[in-house]
């Protein structure tokens, strides 16, 4: 297997010839998880209150929700870089989780009471197929487990009604253990397995990579966290990398994102080191059509994009 690119033989030669009785991915999104966006929105579930802030990104999420509001789907699949696992890839394996999520880094902003449902059947199917393919995997079945705040934040921002079940996949830290190349090899495989399992399941799924782009934080916080006069990208180099990746996203060059991922991770300290973006691109079969950029903004210096690959639309136009 190639490391940074899908071999031609691995790609589905007829990605659009779907048997409509089969399950399918109807959309894939980059849906970052900064708790600041939930804090700024003042939902009932979150204890702290704010005067707003980060509107560009929140409006981006609004546009994403609007874009997908009429798209029928059964399940949302999230890969979260804040459920960090070192012994393989893990899946939430109980039907319901309720608790209080307190961000260990920004507890002043995010103390969120959550109640989410899991599509355990689909999670187990992906788990089993990944295991058959040789990946190290584990189901998380401890009822005391607190779901990571990244999943909760992305879950809220993408679907504040919480009326769809989730499949939640952990972030295997193979970049840390080995290299970005090894991470991509594993995540491309997991993406393929995710796509094929969804197709087998007969379900319609939206898949979300819950990660930012450049990920260099400020090391100080303004007295009023939502003071937007203090918000900007951490450095020019980070901006250049974000725009480079967004250009590839908007022009349908996802293969180039995979090809340049090791440099992106190293130079932009990108949160895609957690595998989410590589997994997403692979699960979408390395799309060569433009994605929709719904919003871009910075949060304590990090670059964040809200992006949608409208698979449903692309299929309709192609048929």
């Amino acid at each position: 297997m190639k490391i940074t690119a899908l071999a031609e033989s691995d790609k589905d030669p007829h990605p659009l010839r779907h048997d409509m009785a089969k399950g399918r991915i109807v959309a894939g999104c980059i849906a970052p998880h900064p708790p600041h966006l939930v804090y700024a929105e003042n939902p009932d579930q979150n204890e702290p209150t704010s005067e707003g802030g980060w509107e560009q990104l929140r409006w981006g999420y609004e546009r994403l929700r609007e874009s997908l509001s009429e798209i029928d789907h059964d399940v949302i699949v999230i890969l979260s870089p804040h459920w960090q696992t070192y012994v393989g890839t893990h899946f939430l394996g109980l039907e319901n989780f309720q608790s209080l999520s307190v961000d260990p880094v920004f507890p002043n902003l995010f103390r969120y009471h959550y109640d989410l449902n899991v599509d355990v059947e689909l999670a187990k199917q992906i788990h089993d197929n990944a295991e058959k393919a040789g990946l190290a995997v584990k189901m998380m079945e401890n009822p005391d487990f607190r779901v990571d705040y990244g999943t909760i934040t992305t879950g809220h921002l993408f679907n504040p009604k919480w009326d769809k079940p989730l499949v939640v996949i952990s972030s295997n830290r193979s970049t840390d253990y080995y290299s970005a190349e090894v991470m991509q090899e594993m995540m491309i495989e997991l993406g393929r397995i995710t796509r094929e399992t969804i197709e087998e399941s007969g379900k319609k799924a939206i898949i979300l990579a819950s990660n930012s782009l450049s990920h260099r934080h400020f090391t100080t916080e303004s007295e009023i966290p939502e003071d937007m006069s203090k918000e900007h990208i951490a450095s020019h180099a980070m901006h250049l990398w974000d725009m480079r990746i967004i250009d590839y996203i908007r022009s349908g060059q996802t293969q180039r994102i995979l090809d340049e991922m090791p440099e992106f991770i190293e130079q932009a300290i990108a949160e895609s080191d957690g595998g989410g973006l590589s997994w997403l691109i692979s699960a979408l079969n390395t799309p060569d059509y433009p994605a929709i950029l719904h919003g871009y903004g910075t949060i304590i210096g990090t670059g964040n994009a809200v992006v949608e690959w409208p698979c449903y639309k692309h299929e309709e136009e192609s048929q």
Partner: protein
Amino acid sequence: MSDGEIIGSYIVPVHPHTYLVPEQNPGWTKLREAFDEAALRIKNSEADLLIIYSTTWPSIIGHQIQADPNPEWVMVDHDFHDLGSIPYSFNIDSEFANAWNEANHQRGLKSRTVNYYGFPIDVGSVVALKLLNPDNAIPAVIVSSNVYANRSETSVMAKACLDVVRSTGRKAIAITAMSLSNRMFTENIDPADDKIHSLKDDEWNCKILELMEKGRLEDVGQLSRTIQKQIRIRKVVAFKPMWWLSAINDNRNDLTGEVLAYEAIHGAGAAVIHLDPASCGTGDKEYDEDDVEYFHGDRSVLDSNDSEDAAIDKNTEAIDEVTTAEENGPALWEPTMADGSVNTDSAPKPVGAYPHARRVGDLLYLSGVGPRQAVTNSIPGGPIHDENGEPLDYDIKAQTQAVIDNIASILEEAGSSLDQVIDVTTFLVDMKRDFQGYNEVWAETLGKIGPTRTTLAIRALPTPIAVEMKVIAQLLE
């Protein structure tokens, strides 16, 4: 009230196996027994405070200090959730936490306390407190590990803690929750098959343990970057706890060390180590890094000059937009070469087109020498102002000593030595403030050699330093 002090230090592993399933592997059982022994020693000591620095609590906005007087929850590990749950209810010394936070600010650090219901106490802290302080008899305080902090920030944070220990008369135990080598097996394993992930990791762990058993904590701290590179995976939190633990023990190298257990937990190096403050009699340091009392935001200035580290640090600096001494002053030049020029990599780079020294006959004429460090360009004792010209506190004695050390380096490069100095002209930017400290260091160094001396007050120097010396010396015959 008598002065407070650190009456003992412990290094303990972070994974939940020792608490939840010690019986599943003989090594885990030994670690649990070592935890129990450590708990007994702590119980029988005079300790009235446990201070935990945990590598499994990363932070971004400075350091965070737990200040909830009674945090309660049920902890489940993100990786080893199948081993079970750990309910906890801890006794936190919130008064100390708040005082430490304030002391951090006084030393130039960013930090804050956290006191929120439901805050997720990290696995390393939970395991340490559950096993070392099972009945909550001793109040504790927990601090995070900042992902961006370097040695100076981490060390100063420890010194701020020590300030409060001393001023409040506490008898404190310092604890670092950490692995040695932290590479785990990336697949599920049978507990019976657990072992250190690789021979290389095991050898490095044993090297660390040998130093610990000899009480050479500061040496381990100064090896921290090398250890990180050799046996630590590239996680956000590096091998920083040794910086913290050494600084809170006054950077000592003569503690009495004892390794209570060393085993593997899912491949990672896990050890329970006790460091007693009683001197073991040795103490010379293998290395001698700068020590910092006040944090000026000068990340990276103390980093290794190892080529790979330097490259990484250079990238980091570019991203950080941090203030180094180099940024806080004019550009640096390569020393010029001419007949009789003497230049050395062991002295700071010039700020203009001139050599470090020039040889004429049997005399050496040195260009003005300041305290900047050769590779890092850092200023021992701290710069006198920041990049905006705002005055900063600094240590004139440290600067003066660094000037004399730089002079010695240049003289040695020329084939001379400090005792050949015959005349010195010293420039001070603040005669009233600094003359006494400068004079004391002089008396202990050049004053014992006996060169003639002239000391002048001047308005400014090109870099943010307080002292510079112009030297004439003889060549050795």
